[in-house]
């Protein structure tokens, strides 16, 4: 039996939209497939240039090291060598990718000059007639290294006395808007919930190692002088205009002098968004007046290529006896490696995703983008979300085990329903997690008990579940904080022993009236929050579940796998659909 997701989706949303389209949902041919099967699709390296030169980098063998001296004299005299390129040859040797959208500080040289902060960081490049000659000359460059202490773990990088990885970020942490050491999410008041003695507290620590995207085509670019004082550049980049802008900036050229050609990429998966081959190749073409190719071999792709970064998450839940999660607290660390690249943005995406697809009335998160002496991290599929989703779903299983519930039923019980308020002060709409669980259970032959098998995303959402709870903030009404003078330490009270964040105060005692955040003005994380006028307290966080049997549900489990009596169908009566409907308003969130 094959599962046809297209047909499944059409069934669910049949009342909501017309899915009988000519292209969507139909098997189709890629428009580029004829080129692929005939081998005629031209990837960047399939463009032949007469007199092509080959550029290869001299790379740091150390995690963290000062460059005392680079001796290229022997390499310069070797056969085929046309040019040795050093940091001084780069017109404007400092950049950060997202500076093109005015985000973050320039923190990364194209070619390192004072020190290197990760294994494989380039300190020089050789341009030679053949790749083999370039390799031989690279091997002949002598670098006098002074090894420095390295830090390879995000939490250790935040500990007092940790070596400074990147001088642009003296606390080893990305500072948002030059003010905030982390991304912050506050919804309700988790502390007051954790203080209750009728709830079970479930804590967990989850981490993910870096993952290399491993595209089959390694990253690379070919640049050549073109007419009209321009340079043409064929590149494997996934982000042609990022690459063009980065090249223009590093080489101090008007972008009108750069003619970038790309789009045919031999697999990217995020790993070709922040490539630095284009500026190197164009620089090579400028310095030699000839076509130059800068291409990673497989070993470089694996060692130097920016992976999905390591992440570590601490989760703490307060769970009622019936399985409802009443509070969830996160502390997350993204290991962005030695340079920012795209990790600052990944942290924002992760925080914006919390607490996962569950209606939890009290949510608290602090997420840090931390510098270590590891390979700089970048995008990969599900960028920013995959790691914390792994943590959340592992934790859901752990919660289910600790409260003695079926893990799918626990998810159904806590899932977003249409009209629920999310921690980001947006109403949930077009929810289908419950139905997704139903179908998954059915396909897997996994028994589901009542009332879970009858629950629906369409029912029992909204109402009091749409309320925005009174939200605990720091004393001055802000949820952000300025970078500390002293190194940051992990906050309490999550597992690892740690002191509180210096500039983040715990929520004041309950009795004191607190500012209430205005959802309309709420930026939800990271930003200073304007204090809204005092408003009446919102209703208690969450209503009692509707006519729900007590958790002797395990015994009531049916013997045969769950099968829905009738297919789940969406109706226009759904709460929220009028508000969010409309031609372009049906985006799945």
């Amino acid at each position: 039996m094959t599962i046809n997701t297209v047909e499944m989706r059409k069934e669910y949303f049949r009342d909501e939209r017309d899915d009988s389209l000519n292209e969507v949902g139909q098997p189709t041919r890629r428009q580029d497939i004829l080129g692929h099967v005939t081998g005629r699709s031209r990837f960047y390296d399939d463009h032949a240039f007469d007199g092509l030169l080959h550029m290869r980098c001299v790379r740091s063998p150390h995690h963290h090291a000062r460059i005392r001296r680079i001796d290229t004299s022997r390499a310069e005299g070797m056969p085929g060598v046309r040019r040795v390129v050093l940091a001084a040859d780069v017109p404007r040797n400092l950049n950060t990718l997202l500076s093109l959208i005015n985000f973050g500080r320039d923190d990364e040289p194209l070619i390192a000059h004072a020190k290197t902060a990760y294994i494989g960081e380039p300190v020089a490049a050789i341009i030679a007639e053949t790749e083999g000659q370039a390799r031989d000359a690279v091997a002949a460059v002598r670098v006098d290294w002074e090894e420095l202490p390295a830090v390879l773990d995000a939490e250790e990088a935040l500990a007092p006395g940790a070596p400074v990885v990147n001088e642009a970020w003296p606390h080893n942490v990305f500072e948002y808007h030059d003010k905030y050491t982390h991304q912050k999410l506050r919804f309700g008041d988790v502390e007051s919930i954790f203080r209750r003695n009728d709830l079970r507290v479930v804590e967990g620590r989850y981490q993910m190692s870096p993952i290399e995207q491993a595209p089959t085509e390694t990253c690379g670019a070919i640049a050549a002088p073109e007419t009209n004082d321009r340079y043409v550049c064929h590149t494997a980049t996934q982000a042609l205009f990022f690459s063009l802008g980065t090249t223009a900036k590093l080489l101090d050229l008007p972008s009108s002098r750069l003619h970038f050609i790309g789009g045919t990429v031999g697999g990217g998966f995020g790993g070709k968004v922040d490539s630095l081959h284009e500026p190197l190749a164009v620089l090579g073409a400028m310095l030699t007046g000839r076509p130059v190719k800068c291409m990673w071999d497989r070993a470089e792709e694996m060692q130097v290529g920016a992976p999905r970064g390591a992440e570590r998450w601490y989760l703490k839940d307060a769970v009622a006896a019936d399985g409802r999660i009443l509070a969830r607290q996160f502390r997350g660390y993204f290991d962005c490696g030695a340079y920012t690249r795209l990790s600052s943005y990944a942290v924002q995406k992760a925080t914006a995703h919390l607490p996962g697809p569950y209606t939890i009335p009290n949510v608290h998160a602090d997420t840090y983008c931390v510098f270590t002496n590891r390979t700089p991290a970048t995008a990969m599929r599900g960028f920013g979300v995959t790691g914390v989703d792994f943590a959340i779903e592992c934790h859901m299983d752990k919660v289910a085990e600790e409260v003695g519930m079926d893990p799918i039923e626990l998810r159904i019980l806590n899932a977003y329903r249409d009209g629920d308020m999310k921690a980001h002060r947006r109403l949930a709409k077009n929810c289908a997690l419950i139905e997704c669980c139903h179908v998954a259970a059915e396909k897997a032959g996994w028994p589901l008990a009542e009332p879970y098998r009858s629950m629906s995303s369409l029912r029992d959402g909204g109402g009091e579940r749409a309320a925005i709870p009174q939200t605990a903030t720091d004393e001055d009404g802000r949820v952000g904080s300025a970078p500390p003078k002293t190194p940051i330490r992990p906050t309490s009270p999550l597992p690892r022993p740690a002191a509180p964040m210096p500039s983040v105060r715990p929520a004041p005692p309950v009795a004191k009236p607190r500012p209430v955040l205005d959802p309309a003005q709420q930026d939800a994380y990271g930003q200073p929050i304007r204090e809204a006028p005092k408003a009446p307290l919102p209703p208690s966080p969450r209503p009692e579940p509707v006519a729900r049997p007590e958790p002797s549900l395990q015994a009531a489990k049916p013997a045969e796998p769950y099968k829905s009596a009738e297919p789940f169908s969406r109706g226009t009566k759904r709460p929220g659909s009028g508000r969010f409907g409309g031609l372009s308003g049906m985006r799945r969130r």
Partner: protein
Amino acid sequence: MSKTPLQFRLNGAEKAVFVEAGSNLLDVLRRGVGDMTPKYGCGQGACGTCTVLVEGRPRLACLTLAETVSGQHVETAASLSDGPDLDPLQDCFMEHFAAQCGYCTPGMLMAAKALLDRHPAPSREQVVEAISGNICRCTGYEPIITAILDAATRRGRRAG
């Protein structure tokens, strides 16, 4: 720089080039005679994107010392189609969505051709085995396996 003369047949046509000592066949095919269909993926025999046929047998061009194909017949993906007429393998790869980025495709096609030339009616296990040295990061392999099995059927029909 003195080089070594090398003569071989490429997709049925005689080729004569000078190669540098130690050159691999991939470099000679791409830079030497301009056949860009085999791709570089690893230079160490791990990915299969440079798979070609030498005397009808699958070989990794990046691990083949170029001068060893002297006098031999090398076939690349460029040999599969005859003008607008495609090999059933190519038709089936198109129909079954067996390529996304397309980078592994020429090597994958040649690995499949090596199989079908030797085993015209392979089992699914034989197909899986035949492409076990070829990495595809996009498709998850299932469409490729389906396409090769379908191509075997169509080739059989055409031969019969």
